[in-house]
């Protein structure tokens, strides 16, 4: 009987387990996870922070459903791969044997680089324990400083506001998420944050985090000192400056890595029988030949399924779709599809890729960009060679399914290009008319 071993129980690991079970009713499937909670929705943590969800609601599968899957769950930390013996070694010395191995260890927040970052009260947001820690600190904190960019930084900012904490949000440069959003889109988000009571500090960086002993003699965060020497009192500091694929387990092994674990289109690493999927995997796109990182939940699910099928002996090629992320920024639903990024414009607030980001979004050259800029409901279309290659839809999402389809099916929109480029044209109307009438 085949032994399938999966390291990591996030979206990729769990999807792989479900897929293996579909194909192999009798196989042994073991999931190793560092967390005691089981499978939960990582993106749902944002809504735990805003009080929109209780913790108990984060689990998409009931205990009965999990029982039916017949998974063996091991709580522990994998520390070493013994590829010769086909075993994974856990921190407590246990050795788990496998016939097929999936590495779905995800990505972890880049640790804060400033002095004082190890003080209690300095947090990052990777998992449920981190979210619980943030909530616990927020109960006592009056003021917090948040640094970083992308979706995770805003999840923390908005979560802390919902907990009644006064938030100072530091941006190193002039605007929010400059590698993905246009200046106008950034301003819209910043205006709404300010309206929610968030104090944004532009061109501001932490120099150091200062601690102070409390009455029990324990040192805690008391203030931050900015690089230009200003002191700001606060009781917690949250940092979201990007994530890195967790590669510790494959260090000193023949498994090839770049920024992530390199895998082929069957999600197999350079070592046969060892697969990788999700945030840790860097997948070669057969169309471009480039290997890119996607730190996206739906991508992790799709990769997990493909890896699971291959592990179960059903040859399956993972076709990289157009990356899509839907998120909520300052209360606005925002859909990002395809190549929407600002051509390699560096993002001052992120040192690596952000959670909820895709390297595919770093724009492609020579594109035509058309906007429809209402105060809140906005659309941005990125067009190359008469085809839509990316879109950002902010606010009203009625147009999203249609745009998703036009991008995925690479429809020639040549006939409506002149109309789309005319000033003040309602993009939504032009696209709808085109889909209904072909012109």
């Amino acid at each position, binding site marked *: 009987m085949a032994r399938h071993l999966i390291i990591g129980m996030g979206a990729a690991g769990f999807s792989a387990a479900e897929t293996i079970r579909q194909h192999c009713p009798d196989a042994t499937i073991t999931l190793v996870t560092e967390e005691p909670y089981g499978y939960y*929705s*990582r*993106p*749902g943590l*944002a*809504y735990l922070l805003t009080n*929109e*969800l*209780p913790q108990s*609601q*984060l*689990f*998409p599968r009931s205990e009965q459903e999990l029982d039916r899957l017949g998974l063996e769950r091991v709580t522990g930390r994998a520390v070493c791969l013994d590829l010769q013996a086909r075993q994974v070694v856990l921190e407590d010395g246990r050795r788990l044997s496998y016939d097929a191995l999936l590495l779905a260890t995800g990505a972890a927040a880049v640790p804060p680089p400033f002095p004082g970052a190890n003080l209690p009260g300095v947090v990052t947001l990777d998992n449920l324990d981190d979210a619980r820690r943030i909530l616990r600190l927020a109960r006592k904190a009056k003021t917090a400083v948040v640094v970083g960019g992308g979706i995770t930084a805003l999840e923390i900012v908005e979560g802390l506001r919902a907990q009644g904490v006064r938030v100072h949000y530091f941006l190193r440069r002039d605007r929010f998420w400059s590698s993905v959003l246009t200046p106008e889109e950034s301003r819209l988000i910043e205006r709404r944050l300010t309206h929610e009571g968030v104090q944004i500090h532009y061109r501001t960086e932490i120099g150091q985090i200062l601690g102070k002993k409390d009455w029990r003699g324990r040192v805690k965060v008391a203030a931050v000192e900015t690089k230009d020497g200003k002191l700001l009192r606060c009781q917690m500091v949250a940092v979201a400056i990007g994530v890195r694929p967790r590669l510790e387990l494959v260090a000193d092994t023949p498994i090839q890595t770049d920024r992530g674990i390199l895998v082929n289109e069957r999600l197999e690493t350079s070592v046969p029988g060892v697969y990788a999927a999700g945030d840790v995997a860097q997948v070669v796109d057969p169309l471009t030949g480039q290997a890119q990182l996607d730190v996206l*939940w*739906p991508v992790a699910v799709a990769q997990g399924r493909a890896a699971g099928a291959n592990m179960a002996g059903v040859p399956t090629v993972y076709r990289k779709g157009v990356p*899509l992320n*839907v*998120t*909520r920024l300052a209360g606005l*639903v925002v*859909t990002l599809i395809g190549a929407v990024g600002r051509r390699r414009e560096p993002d001052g607030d992120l040192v690596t890729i952000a959670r909820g980001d895709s390297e595919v979004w770093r724009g492609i050259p020579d594109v035509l960009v058309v906007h429809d800029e209402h105060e809140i409901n906005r659309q941005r279309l990125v067009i190359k060679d008469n085809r839509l290659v990316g879109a950002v839809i902010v606010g009203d*999402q009625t147009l*999203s*399914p249609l745009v*998703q389809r036009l991008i995925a099916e690479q429809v020639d929109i040549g006939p409506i290009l002149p109309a789309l480029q005319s000033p003040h044209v309602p993009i939504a109307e032009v696209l709808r008319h085109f889909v209904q009438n072909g012109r």
Partner: protein
Amino acid sequence: MGLLGSLFDYERRRSKALAAGRVVPDSSRCVQCGICSFNCPLGIDVRAHAWRGEPVNGGHCITCGECVARCPRGVLRFEQIPHSLERILSNTF
């Protein structure tokens, strides 16, 4: 028409409107956070429907719109039930 009659007429039109619509998910946008199921006043596991990409069908959903309004990612929307399906449902219930 008296007050009772107009109330009855209002209820009849309301039920017809409810039967004609249903909640439909776009599973590609869903991250299984569960806000939809949490806010359903009837305890329908909307998240499971979203995972399978299936409309929330059946007699329990009152199309109150809580799940549609609360979903932070625009996964759910109302859709008019196709005419034939509407007839089947009205015969069933």
